[in-house]
């Protein structure tokens, strides 16, 4: 008696319940942080904790904005993040295309080497990069830090996008070649649109990395006018000796939200031309 519609409804409802439960589980620590950030009392812990604090207040958020140059931090972070994304995509897309499509001497070896680089325990890397940047005269410059970020994320970008390029059938490109398109045209007008989901995912990962990165930015871009969101937040950190947990919690929420908004908005572009019927058969 249960028609298709009823079965569908049941399926949808249980799916939604499943996801609501998942989200709640994933968000409990976040909600905890949110609650601490809206608490008028100063502590991280209390014996009668409730998600809705007894003395609800937004003063911690106000205090973050008022006492700290958050907009300056935001500006710096955006500058670094966008530049790094653009730069790393600009160098990684050609490289991953080449590694995916062309066969040349050393291709497999280089690829494997790139992957194995991840197994290096990099305790001295900051030291080495410091010496390098110092020698190049790029310490305390935005460009220097952007190069550092782009270099760090390039391996991931190349591998990620190469894997995706591999799944795009070559037939489309060969068809375009027969029609007389040049290599550059093929890459820009055919392959890139098809690889959109991978490019967006990679861009989002790079963005998040730069957004939250504080260790390098504290040491390589000194001066209070150069602080980023992440390094500013690190300075607000509540330790045993100083700092206020609610303010620090408020700061953490403020720092995380923009990335999520960007992620939410970019979802639209994560569909590929392929699945919407680009190639059949």
């Amino acid at each position, binding site marked *: 008696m249960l028609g298709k519609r009823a079965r*569908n409804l049941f399926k949808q409802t249980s*799916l939604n319940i499943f*996801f609501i439960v*998942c*989200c709640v589980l*994933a*968000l409990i*620590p*976040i909600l905890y*942080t949110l609650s*601490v950030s809206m608490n008028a009392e100063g502590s*991280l*812990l*209390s*014996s009668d904790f409730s998600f809705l604090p007894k003395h609800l207040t937004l003063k911690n958020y106000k205090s973050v904005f008022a006492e700290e140059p958050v907009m300056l931090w935001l500006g710096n972070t955006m500058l670094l993040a966008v530049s790094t994304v653009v730069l790393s995509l600009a*160098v*990684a897309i*050609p*490289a991953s295309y*080449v590694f995916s499509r*062309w*066969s*040349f001497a*050393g291709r497999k070896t280089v690829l494997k080497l790139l*992957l*194995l*680089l*991840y197994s*290096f*325990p990099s*305790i001295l890397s900051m030291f*080495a990069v410091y*010496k390098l940047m110092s020698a190049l005269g790029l310490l305390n410059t935005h460009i220097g830090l952007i190069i550092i970020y*782009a*270099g760090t994320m*390039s391996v991931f970008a190349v*591998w*990620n996008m190469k*894997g*995706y390029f*591999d*799944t795009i059938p*070559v037939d489309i490109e060969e068809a375009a070649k027969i029609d007389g398109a040049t290599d550059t045209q093929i890459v820009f007008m055919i392959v890139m649109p098809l690889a959109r*989901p991978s490019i967006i*995912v990679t861009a*989002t990962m790079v963005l998040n990395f730069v957004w939250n990165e*504080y260790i390098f930015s504290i040491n390589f871009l000194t001066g209070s006018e150069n602080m980023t969101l992440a390094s500013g*937040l690190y300075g607000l950190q509540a330790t045993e000796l100083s700092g206020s947990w609610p303010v*620090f919690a408020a700061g*953490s929420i403020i*720092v*995380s939200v923009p990335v*999520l908004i960007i*992620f939410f908005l970019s*979802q639209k572009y*994560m*569909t*590929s031309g*392929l*699945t919407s019927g680009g190639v059949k058969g």
Partner: protein
Amino acid sequence: MMKKNNMRAYLVSAPAMIFIGLIVIFPIIYTFFISFTNMNTYHWFNYDFVGLKNYQNALLVFDSGFLNAILYTVLWTAVNMIMQLIIAFVIASFLNIEGLKLRRLYKTLLMFPWAMPGYISILIWKTGMFNSSFGLLNQWLGTSIRWLSSDLGATICCTVVNLWLALPFMIMIMDGGLKSIDKSLYESATIDGAGCIRKAVSITIPCLKPIIGPAVVITVFTTFKTFDVIYLLTQQVGSQTGARIHTIITYTYENAFITNNYGYSSAISIIIFILLILFYEMTNRRSKLC
């Protein structure tokens, strides 16, 4: 696969290689160089070459404690990877079921753990959730269990936190991968009468493998090198919990890196690097990646 001349290939990928060379490969070379010197607190600027002395000393670190750490790390990586792959696959598949209206919202909410800076999240987990007197878990359960004080308890808690931190990335990768599978394959499978599980096994998983392959390998290595989660949750001096669990990196941190003897630490890093590469080679005999 189109054949092109080698020059052009290397030229096009040159910019990426230059960046990688500067920022990733140069530190490795530098570390290798320092491992042959005696750079430490007493010879910070005026270090000399000491040949293989650091390597000789390094072998002393690789004692029984280190072997335990290796076993623990392998176990830790295996458990985490298996759980991540399964849970991410399930969640990503469900996210892609037709008709789920709030899909974008759920996906974004599930990404929150990844958007918040790691050191804060770990701190919140340690003091907000697991704390024996005031943590949420104990407040809800009405108990005062010291979750992090036994080795087993601490391992389970660290795994939970690590999964919480790492799943968003895996879900995103799986989701991207699932979206790239040609829908027509599923259509023809349904026509042929295949059920959900059959479709998943014969279509989804084989097609996913090449796409998520690199991300999985990267995650394996990163999980192997776990430091933050284990150290901040249980081993940081001044807030130790009583559990004594060590991965390779936390073990070498406590036994070598804190001495500020960079020559010595570099030698150990190089040795671990070689070990990991060998390990990767051995386990990769069977599976092919690209």
